[in-house]
């Protein structure tokens, strides 16, 4: 594929000489890609969004996918609002990233937000018509990722940085149908969406409310050949009797540490499939692809330039320099993404054992619950609001299904309270407080009352698990 075909998604689809037979399937309907030449999923209002900074916030991921295809190269900026992010953050996002249009499949967002220019309804079906679309500018893609305060961080990418890991020469010898457990508004899912477009494949999407069994049955019915998810997505799938409904040739894991157990289980269930695990982050981009069936990765990959990605280990954490890293954070007090040499510190800690590096957790104590990041400080902030709590420490507890769970050690104002039979009531109150404001995966699975927490000379709580 010549590089100009990557000027926009529209260019890529126009350059693919044959779209017939290619489809994007969602939980609520299917779109044939050939329809994009004869209609619009934005009701033909693409022109109105030309040059604008557009927030795409939809219930149906397929509607967001189709809007992104129509707007890439047309809009100045696309802000992708993920499914699991509460809509209450919309005003913060719009204040941080100047926004002058909203695209949604809802008639209204149901949350107070600043006035914008056009509010355009989108959907996963075409309004017939002939619409001229020509890539006018490289669109900025803004991805939202979790921040320490519970508010999202906004990361700026371009189509070029997002698609750097997608090789063009793999023109499929046979029909490829991609699928992913991820939301395509998240980095891991977006990779699969873009891969499907650029490698002339079809795509099967799911959403947050679709039961695993139904998704696996649909994926099987569409003949999915390539499929990606986090190790936790896969552990859940393996617990479904419908895991055998799909017969993939390629199974990909990312977003969490892939241990040997999950790799072995997948190889046993799908003997014909290549099982690979990848390391990528929203900021650092796709860096590693490991296809040897073993956890971790060969130490020889470090300090050696492979393609356009350079990796090094400094202070125990993985650092990456590549054209796939994000350009910058956007918003108030945004820190730099890369250091002066252009390396992004992933914060993911590595341990060298027997010639391989293994991921062992995060330096900043971020807890990965089934691929969803939890910043301990955010949860501690909520727990500490309880009038009887003096301080708290939120830490990970290993879990065989979700990788980790969140648990909390809590010091009470009056230590005697825990002992004199009030512990159960206080635990309940603290959990209610958390459930009221935090998504479920951030709510501690258990609370332990302790007499004290270690505080370092810096005045910070000592995070032993970090």
């Amino acid at each position, binding site marked *: 594929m010549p590089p100009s075909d990557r000027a926009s998604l529209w260019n890529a689809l126009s350059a693919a000489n044959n779209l017939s037979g290619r489809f994007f399937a969602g939980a609520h309907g299917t779109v044939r890609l050939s329809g994009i030449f004869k209609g619009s999923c934005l009701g033909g209002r693409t022109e109105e969004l030309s040059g604008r900074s557009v927030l795409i916030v939809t219930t149906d991921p397929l509607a967001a996918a189709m809007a992104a295809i129509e707007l890439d190269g047309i809009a100045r900026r696309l802000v992708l609002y993920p499914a699991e992010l509460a809509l209450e953050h919309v005003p913060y996002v719009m204040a941080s990233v100047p926004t002058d249009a909203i695209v949604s499949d809802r008639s209204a967002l149901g949350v107070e937000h600043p006035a914008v220019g056009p509010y355009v309804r989108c959907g996963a079906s075409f309004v017939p018509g002939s619409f001229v679309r020509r890539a006018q500018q490289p669109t900025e893609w803004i991805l939202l990722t979790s921040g320490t305060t519970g508010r999202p961080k906004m990361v700026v990418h371009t189509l070029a940085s997002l698609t750097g890991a997608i090789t063009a020469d793999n023109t499929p010898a046979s029909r490829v149908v991609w699928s992913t457990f991820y939301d395509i508004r998240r980095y891991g899912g977006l990779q699969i969406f873009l891969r499907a477009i650029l490698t002339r494949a079809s795509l099967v999407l799911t959403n947050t409310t679709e039961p695993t069994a139904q998704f696996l049955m649909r994926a099987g019915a569409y003949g999915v050949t390539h499929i990606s998810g986090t190790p936790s997505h896969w552990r*859940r799938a393996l617990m479904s009797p419908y895991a055998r409904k799909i017969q993939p040739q390629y199974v990909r894991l990312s977003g969490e540490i892939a241990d040997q157990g999950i790799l072995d289980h997948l190889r046993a269930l799908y003997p014909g499939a290549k099982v690979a695990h990848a390391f990528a982050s929203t900021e650092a981009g796709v860096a590693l692809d490991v296809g040897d069936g073993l956890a971790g990765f060969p130490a020889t990959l470090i300090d050696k330039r492979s393609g356009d990605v350079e990796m090094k280990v400094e202070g125990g954490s993985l650092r990456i320099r590549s054209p796939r890293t994000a350009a910058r954070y956007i918003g108030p007090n945004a820190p730099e993404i890369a250091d002066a040499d252009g390396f992004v510190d992933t914060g993911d800690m590595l341990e060298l054992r027997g010639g391989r590096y293994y991921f062992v957790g995060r330096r900043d104590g971020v807890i990965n619950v089934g691929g969803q990041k939890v910043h301990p400080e955010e949860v501690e902030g909520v727990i500490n609001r309880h009038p009887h709590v003096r301080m708290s420490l939120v830490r990970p507890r290993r879990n065989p299904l979700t990788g980790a769970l969140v648990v909390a050690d809590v010091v009470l104002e009056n230590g005697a309270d825990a002992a004199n039979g009030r512990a159960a009531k206080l635990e309940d109150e603290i959990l209610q407080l958390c459930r009221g404001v935090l998504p479920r995966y951030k709510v501690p699975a258990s609370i332990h009352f302790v007499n004290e927490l270690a505080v370092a000379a810096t005045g910070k709580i000592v995070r032993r698990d970090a």
Partner: protein
Amino acid sequence: MSIRSEVITQINRVASEQDKRLAPLSDSLALLDSGLDSLCLAIVVARLEDELGIDPFSTAEEAGPPVTLGEFIRLYEDAAK
């Protein structure tokens, strides 16, 4: 308390804490159809480790994960032997 009843107790407790409606529990019920999502099941496994002192998932890596409630209970019963 038998292992079976401990498992059922924890399933009921987590379902009520997490506001999930449980399907009628039987050995042939697929875990993912029970009304518990993977976060709920993860919490059940953690609670059972606290109560029974065993985590059969980490010790029995060879077997695939349990699909039905009956297989789930048997995993714990076997690990306790």
